[in-house]
């Protein structure tokens, strides 16, 4: 991962630690309060019993996980078989998130490259433009997107006015709309880290490659991409992880067929219909999945670098 590339500061033993130790206390407190505590809370809730009008009863049980993975029939008295409903939702979500990441990369890399190769003065303007949508709340942006692409919205109206289509395209409630929503929501998370990597890229390397008979395409593949890889990986993680847990875009732009993990979890904590332990369990499973992916990746990465 990107962080793994920075060399550790060269401390000279105890003196260094004695100074840095106390300085790190605020960091540890922050991590404790905002990271460890909520996750622990979630973990505990996932093992509690559901209360009927939302909330929990403090009886420890594996019921939430049981419900997620196993199907014991309508009355819970049949022999357990694997419950595919939620696994399918997870699988579909991973797929959607991976596709969104790929699309963000395909669009984001050239964008980042374009910005990084502008003169220094205009780069700041371009970066600012990339972040402008972020001044508006995600919910409002997603609703606006829905408005734009609905059957009698501006997109369809203008396409019909131009005579390119005769009937409005049914975009809302499709996978395509969800992809569009995810892409629009998270593209800057790809552009910014890739930009940071490309901006640091030494273009003399490309000249050296061309000097040694590499074509442009080979230079991109053999030199540019490997060198800016940390930025690309950071961008992919920053897009993939929130896409996986996204619920606004799937809820507003997708339909029942595009139901994703984010929406599933979100639903469990809404109103009196919810099931807090089940939502917590689904969140824990999602987190475990993400951590496994990242760990496997980080392992592969350090092995590659240690060569």
């Amino acid at each position, binding site marked *: 991962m990107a962080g793994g590339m920075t060399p550790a500061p060269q401390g000279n033993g105890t003196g260094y630690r004695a100074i840095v130790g106390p300085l790190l206390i605020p960091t540890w407190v922050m991590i404790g309060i905002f990271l460890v505590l909520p996750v622990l809370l979630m973990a505990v809730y996932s093992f509690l019993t559901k209360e009927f009008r939302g909330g929990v009863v403090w009886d420890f049980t594996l019921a939430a996980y049981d419900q997620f993975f196993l199907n014991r029939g309508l009355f819970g008295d049949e022999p357990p078989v694997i419950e595919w409903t939620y696994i399918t939702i997870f699988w579909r979500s991973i797929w959607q998130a991976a596709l969104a990441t790929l699309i963000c990369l395909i669009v984001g890399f050239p964008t980042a490259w374009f910005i990084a190769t502008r003169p220094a003065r205009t780069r700041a303007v371009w970066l600012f433009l990339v972040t402008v949508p972020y001044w508006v709340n995600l919910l409002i942006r997603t609703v606006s997107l829905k408005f734009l692409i609905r059957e009698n919205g501006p997109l369809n109206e203008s396409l019909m006015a131009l005579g390119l289509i005769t009937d409005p395209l049914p975009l809302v409630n499709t996978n395509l709309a969800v992809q569009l929503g995810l892409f629009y929501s998270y593209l800057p998370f790809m552009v910014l880290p890739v930009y940071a990597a490309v901006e640091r890229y*030494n273009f003399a*390397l490309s*000249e*050296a490659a*061309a*000097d*040694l*008979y*590499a074509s442009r395409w080979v230079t991109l593949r053999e030199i540019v991409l490997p*060198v800016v890889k940390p930025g690309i990986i950071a961008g992919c993680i920053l897009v993939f992880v929130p896409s996986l847990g996204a619920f606004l875009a799937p809820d507003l732009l997708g339909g029942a067929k595009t139901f994703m993990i984010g929406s599933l979890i979100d639903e469990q904590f809404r109103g009196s219909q919810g099931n807090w332990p089940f939502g917590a369990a689904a969140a824990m499973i999602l987190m475990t999945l993400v951590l496994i992916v990242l760990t496997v990746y980080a392992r592969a990465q350090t092995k590659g670098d240690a060569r």
Partner: protein
Amino acid sequence: MSTAIDIRSVVKRYGTATALHGVSLSIADNEFFTLLGPSGCGKTTLLRCIAGFEDVTEGEIRLFGQNIAGLDPNHRPVNTVFQQYALFPHMSVLENVAFGLKMKGVSLSDRTARAGRMLEMVHLSAFADRLPAQLSGGQQQRVALARALAPEPKVLLLDEPLSALDLKLRQAMRVELKTLQEQTGITFIFVTHDQEEALTMSDRIAVMSQGRVQQIGTARDIYEAPVNRFVADFIGETNLLEVTVDRIEGGIARVTLPGGHTITCPTAATTPGKHHISIRPERLSISAAGDLTATVERVVYLGTDLQLLARLTTGEEFHIRLQNSARAQVPAPGSTVALHLEEGAARLLAD
């Protein structure tokens, strides 16, 4: 001997700024040719035009007779040792050196063997598996050299390759570079702003200033027979005096020095009138009756030499170098000395 590179009236403009004003040079195959000049004179620009990273605005560059204007850098049989080395940071030393061969389609076993031999040549076999970041500056420099030499280019371009090294290493590398050039028989075009580097290694030198070639010649030509003030002043140390030329005949000028003495000396100027004369400070001796008279202001001890900072009776500043031998009669500051111009001390310049 055939011509490796023929540069004909090359002009390079960046917008309104002109980096090269009609440069013409011819470099022979197998030659160690140096572009020497102060920073900003256009050396890198000229190299980049040869390598293909820049298009020339006017003029043409011929490589073994072929106009290379339309060729992209990856199609020119020319390799570059970059000033900051530009080694591929994610590849091992061996992979770096083998890269050009890989691009030329040489098989893995062949290119590994050849890259290995190149590393042997630059004494880095033990470092083949390291990443560039794990090498010292001098080692990185040698990797860059091996990488550029491995595909056996017809011409090797070197852009101030030694400038980032410390003095001892730089001196050792000068010898090594010269040896490599002789071993491989590849034409080297070497760029430097360091006149000592240029004088010690080159077969021929082109002295550049402000986008123009001032003079082309061997180290001896350029030092002994500079054509103008820029070259005389840039190469070594010299005294430039404005003089009146009485007569020029058969490459010899008759010149009246400040103070009234008349001498004859070789000349780059062809017409009489006001010109500058270059007088090398180490080719002067203190004698009873001389061509010039000066008052010594300071004596600087340089170890092998003594430098006298003096002023002529006519007011011009004047430097004199004396060998620091036991017999040297060192004039005291404030004393007045008569200076005798030895053979080859003076040369009349074109400007």
